[in-house]
């Protein structure tokens, strides 16, 4: 009995440790906790990928809500961008989770995950040192939708105003993000941050905060499927949700004081490391 209790507590602490790290990285980078939690649960702890994904969907909701409450209160999140683009993401998430997920196996999921992450590195490295995007003009949709905004940057100590470009391609990427989120349970913050950075060209803090705000809704849309299929393990979900939340709250404190360029570096490193891990797992080269 005693051994059972200590080993189950040890298991919970392992899960919680990974989730805490996931919460910190996820809230700073706008990627949600899944980007750390899925690989740790599958590669290091030997959990089946579908259960790991189900747990990470819940972690995404916790990070999005916990960090979101801070970023929204501090007016970094662009609520209009989030609401408008959530339309295409929600649609994509339904299609991904309902139609595509049952016909794909774990290895294929892992390989898609890995390739997605590694490909998204290329454009990010291109402007890795840039603090604020310059010479951005609203496109017509952004003007019509009144998407441009401002935020107070604690690091720069001033209000930063920004325009928003490239809404049509962003809608396409958000749709793809929804599909991948429904498939892989990663909240697809990856694609959401990329749409903000590369198409809309908003400051990285706005990317991160707005993406973070959106992934919770996407994950909630996808969570129903995991609930119905019995893939959510309650004893896995609790340490994940609690620890990821604590990590996310710490992450928001760090993020607001960091420079945009530093946040983009955190984002890039997270992509590279985990992209490689998931490819290795997908091809069966576990370690």
């Amino acid at each position: 009995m005693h051994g059972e209790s200590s080993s189950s507590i040890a298991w919970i602490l392992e899960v919680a440790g990974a989730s805490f790290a996931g919460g910190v990285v996820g809230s700073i980078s706008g990627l949600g906790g899944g980007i750390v939690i899925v690989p740790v649960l599958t590669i290091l702890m030997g959990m089946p990928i579908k259960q790991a994904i189900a747990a990470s969907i819940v972690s995404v909701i916790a990070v999005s809500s916990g960090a979101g409450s801070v970023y929204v209160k501090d007016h970094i999140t662009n609520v209009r961008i989030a609401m408008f683009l959530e339309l295409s993401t929600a649609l994509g998430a339904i299609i991904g989770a309902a139609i595509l997920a049952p016909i794909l196996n774990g290895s294929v999921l892992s390989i898609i995950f890995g390739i997605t992450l590694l490909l998204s590195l290329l454009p990010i490295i291109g402007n890795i040192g840039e603090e604020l995007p310059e010479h951005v003009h609203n496109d017509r949709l952004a003007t019509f939708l009144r998407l441009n905004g401002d935020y107070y940057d604690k690091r720069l100590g001033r209000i930063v105003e920004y325009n928003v470009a490239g809404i049509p391609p962003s809608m396409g990427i958000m749709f793809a993000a929804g599909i991948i989120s429904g498939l892989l349970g990663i909240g697809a913050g990856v694609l959401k941050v990329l749409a903000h950075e590369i198409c809309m060209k908003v400051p990285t803090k706005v990317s991160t905060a707005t993406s973070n705000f959106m992934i919770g809704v996407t994950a909630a849309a996808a969570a129903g499927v995991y609930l119905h299929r019995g893939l959510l393990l309650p004893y896995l979900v609790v340490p994940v949700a609690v620890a990821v939340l604590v990590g996310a709250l710490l992450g928001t404190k760090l993020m607001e004081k960091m420079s945009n360029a530093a946040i983009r570096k955190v984002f890039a490193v997270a992509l590279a490391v985990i992209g490689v891990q998931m490819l290795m797992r997908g091809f069966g080269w576990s370690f």
Partner: protein
Amino acid sequence: MDSEKTPPPVTNEIDPKVPASAPRQAPIERNPIQHEFAIQDVSAWVLRIGVVLSTSVMVLGVIISYIHHVPSVHHMKHFVFVDHVSVIWNGVLAGRGGSIIDVGVYLLVLTPIVRVFTSMVLFIVAEKDYFYAVVTFFVLLMTLGALLFIH
């Protein structure tokens, strides 16, 4: 009578307080920035209450199940969420830790959805912005639809 005949001062067409002789601004490339502080502040509270409430319920569930019976790692890796309102409700009434955890998970999943709902209401009530209210309504509809009806 004379004063009535003096022509009114020439003013800027857009802003009567600014005389026309004032230097014209360069063409504005930026839209006026709109803020929706009401939506942001209410959203922040909804999210905060949601995460605190749901994780507290989850932790309570774990504590209760530890008091009843220490779950083995095997049990933890395989005990599955039963997705039936009646099963969860009976479990909560019977004081089963697993069911209480389930309630917490549902509260967490509902948190962003409640946030979308309150945003929709505030776009109507506080912002009088019906376009975004409709956008938010469709997001809400799809999210609830996915949560409830996709199996």
